[in-house]
């Protein structure tokens, strides 16, 4: 009997990567504690999040059993399906809060742009694997096109945050595939100069009558509010100011679990979703933040390790990109809450309440595990 149970356990966990799973579970645990405090007035959220975790883990378990070769085979169909859905959204999508992001299928409402976060690196990794032997400048242009079309469709919804995440995912693949430094360095330098210019000329370009080409008014507002939150202390600036106060007032050791005044007196908006890091930071302080950063680094380090040891170009690119997407989520969210990045709708990975992001992230972890477990099978 015991033997049977042990064998079943082995069978269930044979594709699960211990290191990834352990760090993920630790982060999940911190997240649940934080969510308990953040959603004190709405205990149902905790149960909801447990269900989300269950679903996400199942998705991960399945993904971990799918060999990379199979993934490669489905890369193109998934990408094309995602693209078609994005077109469908543009044509028949449901408009919520002025943005056309949602698609109704029966009773389920979902954002097809979410699919692209996985589909994009899959597709590009597949493409570079195909062109591996004869990689030329032309291939990078094609890759740029594969990347640009869905990114533009998402940006037009408009959903700048997701568009940037999809762009980032694609860029990671292209970068890891070996995009010439001669192209990367000038763009990076230009971007840095632009960023400095925006900060220096903030007061001029944020005048109400100045129109930013290619930006919606609310997007301009988000950037301007980040540059100077005091211009709008009760509106957009309120989020940033109150979140920064929460983080700062946490101090070295934090106010203690369930003791955050900013949290419990409802000064922090979106405190169980996008701004949950403010709650964590207020209650656990700088030490808590350091622990969380270390856990993320452990998870990312394992991802890099898997990428570095992956047998095929496809697997390497995919693993590297997924790891970097994970990093992007974490960095953008924490940067936003602590007031160094504009407010974009990016959750804190494995901590924020919400099923969609959790499933996407765990799918990514599942793919990483699959790559790690199927390494030898390919080599032999």
């Amino acid at each position, binding site marked *: 009997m015991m033997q049977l149970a042990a064998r079943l356990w082995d069978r269930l966990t044979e594709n699960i990567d211990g290191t990834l799973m352990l760090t993920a579970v630790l982060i999940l645990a911190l997240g649940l504690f934080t969510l308990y405090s953040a959603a004190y007035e709405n205990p149902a959220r905790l149960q909801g999040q447990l269900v989300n975790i269950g679903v996400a883990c199942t998705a991960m378990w399945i993904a971990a059993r799918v060999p990379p070769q199979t993934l490669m085979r489905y890369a193109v169909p998934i990408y094309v399906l995602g693209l078609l859905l994005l077109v469908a959204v543009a044509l028949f999508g449901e408009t919520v809060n002025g943005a056309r992001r949602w698609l109704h299928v029966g009773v389920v409402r979902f954002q097809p742009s979410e699919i692209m976060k996985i589909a994009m690196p899959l597709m590009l990794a597949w493409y570079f694997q195909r062109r591996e032997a004869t990689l030329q400048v032309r291939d990078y242009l094609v890759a740029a096109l594969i990347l640009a079309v869905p990114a533009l469709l998402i940006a037009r919804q408009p959903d700048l945050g997701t568009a940037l995440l999809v762009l980032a995912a694609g860029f990671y693949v292209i970068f890891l595939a070996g995009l010439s430094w001669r192209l990367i360095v000038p763009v990076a330098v230009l971007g840095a100069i632009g960023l400095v210019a925006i900060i220096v000329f903030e007061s001029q370009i944020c005048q109400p009558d100045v129109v930013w080409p290619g930006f919606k008014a609310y997007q301009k507002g988000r950037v301007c509010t980040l540059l100077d939150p005091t211009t709008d202390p009760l509106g957009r600036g309120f989020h940033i100011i109150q979140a920064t106060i929460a983080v700062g007032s946490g101090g070295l050791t934090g106010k203690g679990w369930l003791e955050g005044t900013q949290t419990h007196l409802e000064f922090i908006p979106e405190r169980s979703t996008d701004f949950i890091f403010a709650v964590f930071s207020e209650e656990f302080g700088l030490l808590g933040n350091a622990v969380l950063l270390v856990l993320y680094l452990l998870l990312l380090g394992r991802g*890099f390790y898997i990428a*570095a040891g992956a047998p095929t170009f496809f697997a390497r690119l995919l693993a590297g990109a997924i790891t970097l997407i994970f990093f992007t989520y974490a960095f953008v969210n924490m940067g936003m809450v602590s007031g*160094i990045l504009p407010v974009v709708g990016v959750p804190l990975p494995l901590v924020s309440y919400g099923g969609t992001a959790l499933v996407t992230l765990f799918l990514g972890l599942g793919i990483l595990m699959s790559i790690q477990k199927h390494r030898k099978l390919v080599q032999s």
Partner: protein
Amino acid sequence: MSYGEFRDLDGDLRRFQVRLGVAGAVVLGAFLVLLGRFAYLQLLQHDYYKTKAEDNRISIVPVVPNRGLILDRNGIVLARNESQYTLEINPRQVTNLEQTINELAAVVEILPRDRNRFRKLRQEIKGADSLPIRTRLSDEEVARFAANAYRFPGVEIKARLFRSYPFGATASHALGYIGRISDRDLERLEADGLIANYKGSDFIGKSGVEATYERELHGTTGTAQVEIDAGGRGIRTLSSTAPVAGNNLVLTLDIKLQEVAEQAFGKFRGALVAIDPTTGGVLAFVSRPGYDPNLFVDGIDPQSWQALNEDENKPLNNRALSGAYPPGSTIKPFMALMALQLGKRTPEYTISDPGFYMLAGLARPFRDWKVGGHGAVNLHKSIVVSCDTYYYGLAADMDVDQQHAFLSQLGFGSPSGIDIDGEKGGLLPSREWKKKRFKRPDEQKWYVGDSVSVGIGQGYLLATPLQLAFASAIVANNGIVYRPHVVSQVVDARSGEARRIEPQPARTVALNQKWVDLVKAAMVDVTRPGGTAARAGAGALYKFAGKTGTAQVIAMKQGEKYDEKKVAERHRDHALFVAFAPAENPTIALGILVENGGHGSGTAAPIARTVLDYYLLGKVPDKKPELDADAPEG
């Protein structure tokens, strides 16, 4: 597979691993930036943000003090704070106000005036948490609502302190009332630097003692440190400093005397001021009709306000201190005193009154009220029978500015300084006044004819009922002047320590006691057989000094016969009376005006008798005095 291909793949792998290394470095760098940001916020800036979070969390909430009580001279409460149940609606928690109020009306009585007041309050106080739809709920109504409370989210029963005036309209013009703080009140509080003490206060004294003693009555607002959430709702109190209740006021007023005086007026409009001549303390302060100050305390509804303002009897007018009337013959004792004091008349000086007075250069005579005249009249008789002719001549012999100087000392022509707002100074004419008042040079000149009219209390001369009482009190007290006042003591609400207000003599009018006694004796004879107030004085058990007066409401041409019966009630003369008693040692002085009361002897003098009988003898009037507006002259 060729060797070359292997090398190529190795190169790919190496290049990829370099790229991965770069990415890893970026990741590490980015996390270090985050860690630096966290350290900056949580270590370097920690104190700043900690304070910010505390400021967020804690709000200083004012705790409104209880308003001081107002008591009469015997300790009877005239204004108090009553805990009342109010039914209050939080407009932000109720989606359909109209419907909710309609449903509430089925549970507790809600009158149209309640709805109107609620609407008015809603407009005046934007963003209020709680507004009363009904005040003064009965216990039964409270119980009925409690049983139905589940149907009305956002509607609550609250116990609140309300100002209450248990005597209603009685003494309303002395007490005044409180009302909701208006924008103008706020400006004044701001200018006086008192605005901080009114945080959280809804009410302020609007008139009467409630207004003049606002600073004493209000008290000091306390504070509570309350933890609040982002929506501004209080969660719990952290610490507090208790408010200091307002000081209590003890009035000089005797509420029983006040009731007797007000009832004595019957249906008549008018005013009465009773002063203790030895202190200046106001014993009764009547302005009829009054109004119920209770109407104002929870916000007066528009209808009641309109009714009070449009009432042709003008109940909101404080006649006692702002109504200026010709004093008529009540001025005569003061004129006589002046003439004696200034040497213009001797007690022995006697005229022969033919019933009129001829002024050199004027063809038209000034008529005495008594056709045929009073015969031989000396100063004593001139007061007793109220001889006009005597005073025409007396006034003609006076210099108007001398007269102005003397009568000013008795309080005419300027406010007495009573501690109730809105006092008018009446009008005591002088050359200077006439020059300023008129434009044309011939009008600006003072004529002897002007003086002659003033001699019998007509012409330009105007006085308030308070001034008449004040002048009587000064004479009664032999020239020693005490400023009239309504409040005698301010009692500290906590220590019970009483601060007395006055009475120190404000000044002394230099009067020869011989002349004062002479005038007093004549005034006593006014109320005795042969005097104009003989009827009112009949059977008085004390020495009752008085003087009747009649003031014309519409100007009559000299010589025109005046028939009261034919004149509409509103055009009937005003009746006046000044008095003090007991004459040898006066403890009360009166100034009385009865609007359209006819002659002083018929209406005003009986009121005086009723008041004096109660005050001096404790005699409660068993029936309303018969006031006779058609009585013969006095």
